[in-house]
């Protein structure tokens, strides 16, 4: 028996070893949608830019799917006991794609000069930083003004990409001609961009990690129509469809093809959470009972199963379950139209019309808005759908000109980075749709978020965040929908593509094609 077990274990070991042996060479054909406006990741941080340029540029750290930091440009790091000093030790053999050495001076320039000017999201986090210094070529020290819990979570390539000091120092960043031929330290180099057609990246032969990357080149195909993107996969032109490439109603058909694998992993860092903004300032949505009624009226399981192919999860509250400090000890809003009707009767809702803005991101979102409208109609809420394009939708939210509006936002792994911004009353300001757009004002919640952000221990932070989640879920400042599942679809012989918390965005470093 023992022998048989040993043999089986040995066989497993051998097969794992065989599978785990990466193959060098080959080309990846990937869809990119929409076409990125630019590949200079220090200047532009939209989704497609991060996906393509994430292979060109790097941050100091990467994160695994449990959001634990892993080495990237920094090979190790120390945090002082008081949580105020973060010291990063850099690899000493890193070169920019133009052959110049990468040093700590580039880190200081990127974080303290370049990105402070250009990166709206990062510069909010950098407000906690007192100084960034480089005592030698391979050491960088970040000194904080006060402890900041999520600090170790802001070193991912999209959040803090390293940009070359020797190219950008003293220039006008936005119009620097080098923006069209991006120079990074990453596993792939920029080779060619035929606008409207494709982007070509080729292997960085001088990459500092021995043997990596495995692929010779990556072709990113720009195909503007969702149906054509599905056809591109079906006819073998592309082999990888990153999350969101095709309409949800095509996902099942395409993923059932031969030699096709599908995964919804690789979004843990972003934790995309969808909700409906409810205008807390005026109209029926200003009444907490109305907002709770909306939660009870929605059949979110139906939305997940019918519109999202069963991928993703029904949201518990403001924090995504993949984000740190998530708690499920909160009130449950299961589908219960009777309870919704009772709440509406209690508040004395008289059938005032509420305007609902769908998210103008394609067919799935339009259908979702129609499904919600039907749910709300059924409990007696009068809903009028208002259509806009993306620019119009931006404007309406930024000007608070809505009653209910669909959206989804990223959480960046920590409530202090991606959750608090939606609920802090200090974050109520017209002109942006990433702040407290709903106008929720609760000083208790403010205090809890503020305390949790600077608390030193994880236990303490968990306690404070659990409490804030309970309060928010009771008040329903916004109507949480689903933790979205964006499936990456790919040929099964593409290996190790999605291994980190940002998936395809930095996935080609490890990816290889099995022969």
């Amino acid at each position: 028996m023992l022998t048989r077990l040993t043999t089986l274990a040995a066989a497993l070991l051998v097969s794992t070893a065989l599978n785990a042996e990466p193959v060098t060479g080959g080309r990846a054909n990937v869809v990119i949608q929409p076409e990125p406006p630019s590949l200079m990741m220090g200047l532009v941080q939209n989704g497609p830019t991060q996906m393509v340029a994430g292979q060109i540029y790097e941050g100091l750290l990467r994160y695994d799917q449990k959001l634990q930091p892993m080495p990237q440009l920094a090979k190790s790091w120390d945090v002082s006991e008081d949580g105020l000093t973060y010291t990063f030790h850099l690899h000493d053999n890193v070169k920019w794609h133009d052959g110049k050495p990468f040093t700590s001076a580039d880190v200081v320039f990127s974080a303290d000069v370049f990105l402070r000017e250009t990166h709206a999201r990062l510069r909010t986090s950098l407000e906690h930083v007192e100084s960034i210094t480089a005592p030698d070529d391979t050491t960088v020290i970040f000194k904080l003004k006060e402890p900041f819990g999520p600090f170790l979570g802001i070193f991912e390539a999209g959040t803090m990409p390293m940009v070359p000091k020797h190219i950008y120092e003293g220039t006008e960043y936005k119009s620097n001609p080098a923006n069209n031929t991006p120079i990074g330290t990453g596993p792939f180099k920029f080779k060619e961009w035929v606008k409207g057609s494709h982007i070509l990246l080729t292997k960085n032969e001088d990459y500092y990690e021995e043997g990596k990357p495995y692929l010779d080149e990556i072709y990113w195909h720009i195909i503007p129509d969702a149906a054509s993107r599905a056809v591109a996969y079906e006819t073998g032109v592309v082999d990888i469809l990153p999350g969101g490439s095709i309409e949800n109603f095509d996902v099942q058909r395409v993923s059932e093809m031969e030699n096709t694998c599908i995964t919804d992993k690789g979004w843990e860092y972003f934790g995309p959470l969808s909700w409906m903004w409810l205008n807390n300032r005026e109209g029926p949505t200003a009444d907490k009972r109305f907002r709770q009624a909306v939660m009870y009226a929605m059949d979110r399981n139906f939305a997940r199963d019918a519109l999202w192919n069963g991928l993703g999860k029904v949201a518990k509250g403001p924090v995504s379950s993949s984000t740190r400090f998530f708690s499920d000890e909160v009130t449950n809003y299961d589908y219960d139209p009777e309870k919704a009707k009772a709440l509406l009767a209690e508040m004395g809702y008289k059938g005032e019309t509420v305007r609902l803005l769908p998210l103008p991101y394609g067919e799935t979102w339009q259908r979702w808005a129609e499904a919600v409208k039907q749910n709300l109609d059924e409990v007696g809420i009068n809903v009028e759908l208002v259509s806009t394009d993306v620019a119009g939708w931006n404007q309406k939210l930024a000007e608070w000109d809505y009653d209910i509006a669909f959206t989804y936002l990223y959480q960046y792994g920590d409530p202090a980075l991606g959750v608090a911004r939606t609920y802090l009353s200090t974050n109520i300001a017209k002109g942006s749709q990433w702040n407290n757009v709903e106008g929720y004002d609760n000083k208790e919640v403010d205090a809890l978020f503020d305390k949790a952000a600077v608390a030193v221990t994880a236990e303490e932070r968990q306690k404070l965040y659990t409490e804030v989640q309970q309060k928010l879920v009771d008040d329903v400042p916004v109507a949480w929908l689903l933790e979205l599942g964006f499936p990456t679809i790919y040929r099964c012989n593409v290996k190790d593509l999605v291994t980190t918390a940002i998936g395809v965005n930095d996935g080609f470093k490890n990816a290889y094609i099995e022969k």
Partner: protein
Amino acid sequence: MLRFILMRLGKAAIILIAIMTLNFFLIHAAPGDPAAVMAGEAGAADAKFIAQLREQFGLDKPLLVQLGIYLKGVLQFDLGFSYRQQMPVSQLILDRLPATLLLTMTAFVISLLLGTMAGVLASARVGKWSDTAISSLALLFYATPLYWAALMAVLLFSVYFNWLPGFGYETVGANYTGLARALDIGRHLILPATTLGLFFMAVYMRMTRASMLEVSQLDFVKTARAKGLKSSIIQRRHIFRNAMLPVVTLAGLQAGQLVGGAVLTETVFAWPGIGRLMFEALAQRDYNLLLGVFFVSAAMVLLFNLITDILYRFVDPRIRVA
């Protein structure tokens, strides 16, 4: 003739400036602006950041000042800078122009040649089965929505039969050169150009047929027949030439749109042309780029109107005298 052309060019310049001014105000009347869209894509931004972008793009200046700056640039043949794509507008347009011209001109030639030929054929066999067949086909092409026809073409010829590539300008990564590349592009061109040409093909066919029939009833044709001229000569010299006037008008209209690209066809077939560039610029409120595309396509419409008017004078000597 030269005086006529110069006068028309002068008028065209004034019309062009008027069009640009109108476009400028129309675009700015749409909700949202490029700064908000770009900040939006970053996934986070505060009002300060958006204000900083607006200042960089010059969007903080009064509208009339912005218009003045823009028109001054245009007069110096400078179409401005696309902040979103971080490239000069003229460069972006020039990059896309060859692909668009290849697509639209192929579609133009296909539709004009086949449409006119089918129209002549149908008019010569009025009431016979070939006329019925051609007319029914024309009606079908005329009524089919382009988007649907395009998707069906891809489904049939690309997915099902696997005869032709379903999208793109050429095989990406194949690195063909010379004749092999030309053939590759040609294969990619067949589906989009045919789909795009279908509608106009139907229009040319119907117009040629109707016009031929109308002209054939006129007195000078009867006279020609009475003189005992051969039927083929009457068809060619007397009827066809006179029947072509409305077709030339229509061709002029279609030709004017060649540069504007074909938004739907270019989108479905992932053709890297100007139509898509324009559509994306519109969605992103990329003002300079959008105005640039409008400028080039408006200039082309005016140019082709002029060419049509000159052609008239050759096709129909009566206009030359008038």
